[in-house]
């Protein structure tokens, strides 16, 4: 059973790679090289801060966009083009397909992020010529970004289990933006009354919570990250992703594949 999930995950990864998803890395590398060259020459005193902000934000945004688009394309494509028919006529359970896809997509993003992280650290080294202890927190920031991808990918899969590719992309992107401001949404909900308050609070807890996963400005200023935050973020992201994938399985299990 789990072997099939592994095969599907590996195949998804292979497909993403051959579909030239990883070409985005070239663009990112160029960005990093350009930035570190530029900031190396201008002594503005805060060049490290700006490079960290730029690099980590780029990793985050590129990754979210990739997560949404390959998450959706790779699943919708299979459903529309009927590659799925020959898969499901084999002893593959529908839920194995979803979980396997999720695993493969996540793995693709981890690989992608690792390459980007290497490029980022190289650019950083070129700029600062040595690492400091506080740079460990940069790794934590990147880890949080990966957690963010896990949640976004799960959401993208959830939508593509029932919606068309275009709509799925739109919804996933919208949820990402809303999730970035979910703390404010909870604040709004706390200030309202009655039925609106109940509804708003429910929504504010159900939308993903990306605010706590973004520690970019802190690590840019070499502020430490508490281990409690790491624990809570990890728990939250995994639970939320599991819920989204369970939702995707639920929908997909009962869906008639036209």
């Amino acid at each position, binding site marked *: 059973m789990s*072997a*099939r999930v592994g*095969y*599907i995950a590996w*195949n998804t990864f*292979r*497909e993403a790679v*051959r*579909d030239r998803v990883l070409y985005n890395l070239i663009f990112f590398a160029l960005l990093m090289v350009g930035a570190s060259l530029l900031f190396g020459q201008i002594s503005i005193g805060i060049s490290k801060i700006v490079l960290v902000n730029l690099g980590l934000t780029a990793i985050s945004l590129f990754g979210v966009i990739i997560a949404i688009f390959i998450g959706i394309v790779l699943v919708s494509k299979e459903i529309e*083009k*009927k*590659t*799925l*028919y*020959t*898969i*499901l*006529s*084999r*002893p*593959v*359970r529908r839920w194995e397909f979803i979980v396997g896809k999720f695993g493969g997509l996540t793995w693709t993003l981890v690989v992608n992020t690792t390459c980007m992280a290497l490029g980022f650290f190289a650019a950083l080294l070129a700029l600062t010529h040595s690492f400091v202890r506080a740079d460990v927190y940069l790794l934590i920031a990147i880890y949080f970004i990966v957690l963010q991808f896990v949640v976004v990918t799960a959401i993208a899969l959830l939508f593509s289990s029932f919606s068309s590719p275009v709509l799925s992309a739109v919804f996933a992107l919208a949820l990402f933006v809303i999730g970035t401001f979910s703390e404010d949404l909870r604040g709004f909900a706390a200030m309202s009354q009655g039925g609106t308050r109940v509804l708003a609070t429910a929504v504010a807890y159900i939308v993903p919570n990306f605010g706590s996963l973004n520690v970019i400005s802190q690590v840019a200023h070499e502020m430490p990250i508490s281990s409690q935050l790491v624990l809570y973020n990890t728990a939250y992201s995994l639970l939320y992703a599991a819920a989204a994938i369970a939702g995707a399985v639920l929908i997909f299990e*009962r869906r*008639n*594949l*036209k």
Partner: protein
Amino acid sequence: MAAIEITGLTKTYTVGFWRKRPKCALKPLTLTVEDGEIFGYLGPNGAGKTTTLKLLMGLIFPSGGGARILGKPMDDPSIKAQIGFLPEQPYFYDYLTAAELLTYYAQLSGVSARERRTRVDDVLHRVGLTDSRRTQLRKLSKGMLQRVGIAQAILHDPKVVFLDEPMSGLDPIGRREVRDLIATLKEEGKTVFFSTHILSDAEALCDRVAVLNKGELRVIGSVGELTSRAQGRVEVIYQGIRAAALDRLVIESHSTGETTRIIVAQDSLDAAIEAIRRANAKLLSVNPVRSTLEDYFVEKIADPVEAVP
């Protein structure tokens, strides 16, 4: 044990956005396919053939009724290892090579790691794609893709093979090859259930056929049974000018250069030969015409449901 037992299987969709109307894609279907048979599932486009196959594969869920494959309910996951499926106009992972795709499918079908390599090579050889094993699928022609499709359907040595329009997109040589392959599958003791709207293929291969139209099963029986009513026609080929006297008798006529081929009723045969002789034309051949499934089809499709003979 029957390989496939379908009982009252039916599927209704609701269409329309505001006012939901039910649309019946498949009226309750009951039929049985015996072990080792080649069974043809015929019908015009939109008759419900693909719907039936998708129901059997568990890709869509029935509105009623059910089926058993190899004695187990059709949604039992354990039978999936023993069936193979080729969908209509299949599409595969573009960026994989033929060998990689088949290896992937072998993994999913539970073929052990030791056997995978040999099985994949064997089946590639069987469908004649050994030379293309390392070519990415997006570079293969439609006919080759169809062969890949058949390859993935049989690679794990299933007992029952379901093919949806297996000849579609193939040139005459390809079609002949697929026909031969299906025949070989039967020799290996497999049951083959294939749908098509090309009747000559069904005629050549099938032990029994079922005819479907507008979601409803019209008739089921052996090819021989369906075409056994000799329509009592004779084909006459002669050389020379057309005899006017023949026009009355002729059902069909076709001329190429100096040779003419006509179809006349059995009863009119003597009169026709006489007319040809009188016109000083040269008689080339006289043969009885076996009615084809096509005749049966054309005749029957517009008619109300016929009882199973």
